[in-house]
């Protein structure tokens, strides 16, 4: 005797209903604290006096005043006429390769060094200090009177670089980017160290017996072996560079003359200084979309790795 209610289809539906029942509490929380704010932000960004338009977006992107420009800025002299978004782009182009490569090379070099855990811990300190403090430290590092870098440059006879970097439009962005390499190196080094430690010793010994030099071992064995970690570090660094705010706020406030502003800082200016919530929301949405592209890659890759 078969019961009508037990057909495969209705069983499947029952399964689904049960699954959603378990998901309900999490979904409820997500809706209130994630989905609703996102929808709200998008809605605010699209609203203006003429109703629902893209007006806020157009205004934000074409803005040319030095402190709020996203693409082209009409700042006067010193720095190139770049807006905040281009600053982010330069930041990424310099910071991602520099931090990733430096972390990888250091991680491998440290495997040969006695007392490596001490060195690693010291570098990792930059990861645990709050980024706002990190921003202040950057100001000190590049200070004309007491900073390490300007004094070094002065010693080398480079008078133009022997002054307070954060105070001049030519050098403000560079000081932030170099500072961020130091701040973020701990992350890159830690992830790469774990990956390097995971390489079976026999991989390296086999290459050594086959006649490979240290450089060849690094190039042909170590780099490919830690490549997944390197990609993760690169994408995480890129995400951080897109969202970067705190060290800019603490070190230069985007100045002087908008020469070191970034996307998140412009968003904050619209929100907290200009009280223009529509434009602030539009900037936020642009920032989110850019971040999502990078994050989507990361998520897809990590899911793909798990499947294999």
């Amino acid at each position, binding site marked *: 005797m078969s019961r009508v209610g037990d057909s495969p289809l209705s069983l499947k539906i029952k399964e689904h209903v049960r699954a959603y029942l378990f998901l309900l509490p999490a979904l409820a929380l997500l809706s209130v604290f994630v989905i609703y704010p996102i929808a709200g932000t998008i809605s605010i960004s699209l609203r203006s006096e003429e109703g629902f338009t893209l007006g806020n977006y157009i205004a934000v992107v074409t803005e040319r005043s030095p402190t709020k420009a996203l693409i082209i800025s009409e700042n006067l002299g010193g720095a190139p006429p770049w807006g905040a978004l281009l600053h982010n782009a330069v930041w990424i182009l310099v910071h991602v390769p520099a931090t990733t490569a430096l972390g990888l090379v250091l991680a491998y070099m440290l495997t040969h060094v006695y007392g490596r855990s001490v060195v690693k811990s010291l570098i990792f300190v930059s990861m645990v200090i709050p980024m706002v403090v990190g921003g202040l430290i950057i100001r000190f590092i590049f200070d004309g009177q007491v900073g390490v870098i300007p004094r070094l440059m002065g010693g080398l006879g480079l008078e133009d670089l022997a002054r307070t970097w954060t105070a001049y439009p030519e050098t403000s962005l560079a000081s932030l980017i170099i500072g961020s390499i130091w701040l973020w190196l701990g992350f890159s080094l830690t992830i790469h160290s774990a990956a390097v430690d995971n390489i079976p010793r026999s991989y390296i010994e*086999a290459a*050594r*017996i086959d006649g490979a030099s240290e450089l*060849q071992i690094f190039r*042909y064995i170590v780099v*490919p072996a830690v490549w997944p970690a390197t990609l993760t570090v690169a994408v995480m660094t890129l995400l951080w560079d897109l969202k970067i705010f705190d060290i800019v706020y603490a070190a230069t406030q985007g100045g002087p003359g908008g020469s070191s502003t970034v996307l998140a800082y412009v968003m904050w200016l619209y929100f907290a200084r200009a009280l223009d919530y529509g434009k602030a929301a539009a900037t936020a949405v642009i920032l989110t979309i850019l971040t999502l592209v990078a994050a989507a890659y990361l998520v897809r890759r990590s899911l793909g790795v798990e499947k294999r």
Partner: protein
Amino acid sequence: MASIMLEGIVKRFGKTVALRGVNLEVRDGEAMVLLGPSGCGKTTTLRIVAGLERPDEGRVVFGGRDVTNLPPKDRNVAMVFQSYALWPHMRVFDNIAFPLKIRKVESSEVRRRVRWAAELLEIEHLLDRYPHQLSGGQQQRVAVARAIVTEPEVLLMDEPLSNLDAILRVKMRSEIKKLQRRLGVTMVYVTHDQVEAMVIGDRVAVMNYGEVQQVGSPQEIYNEPANTFVATFIGSPQMNIVKGVISGGLLSLLGTQIEGVEGVEGEVLVGFRPERIVIGDGDLKFPAIVDFVEDLGSDVIVHLSVEGAGELVIAKLRGAHASLKPGEKVLAGVMRSDIHIFDPKTGRALKHGV
């Protein structure tokens, strides 16, 4: 010319002494097996030959050339690792070709040599695969192909078969032996498996406690063990060793006696192999009670307890003796030529055959 001489090699790791003066000569074109229990120093010895470890004392000489302080790449050695150490991001072809590319061999020559090595090991059809797509046995072949592709003077193998299943291990050990003969390469092979050692080695160096206990052909090691360690480590089940006394040429053991044992006096250890025990025959016969019977089909392992002497003797008999029952009384015997006499203090062999 690639004979290998190890002279007084000492190696310490912190406070532990891994090798305490290893002397060993491997002749050109010879297959030398380092055999011993884990922790005996055999792998450390191999790594010192490879140049992966530096000895604290002693010299490593390859064909008259002192290589003690040379890095691996200047020694013209190749090595097969226990874990195979195939690089997962390279295809099989690139794994095998790597040592050639490092030596800047021209690419057409690289292809020719890789194909040659792959054919020898019957893995031509796997060249496009990645290591994780291969079975353990196939990975092992790739590792061997990578090792021979440069035609090294010295081939080192660190327990290369220990990760394979039993059937494959038996097949591969004879293949490795044939390959070594065919290439005429000097080989040092590390294993803890005595059967593998006997099959592969032209000579076997039995190691324990960081020292070479005995070097010899499989026959020598088996028939004339230098001490009780070698005697009990080689052969399965292990050699029976019982207490005995010799006075005036009369050897007393297991409640019985045998005359005409010359040259040794006093308390001794007497050894004889389980497979040399016969029932009801032999120059030395002793009565015993069957304690336990392990029927292996082809053979029977019989545990015999010797009355009065309080000793347990293991005998390996033909399958025909499977009908023996615990509690049964038997007369076990050994030939004079199968009896070994050892010094009870040092364990050194005093006499093979009495």
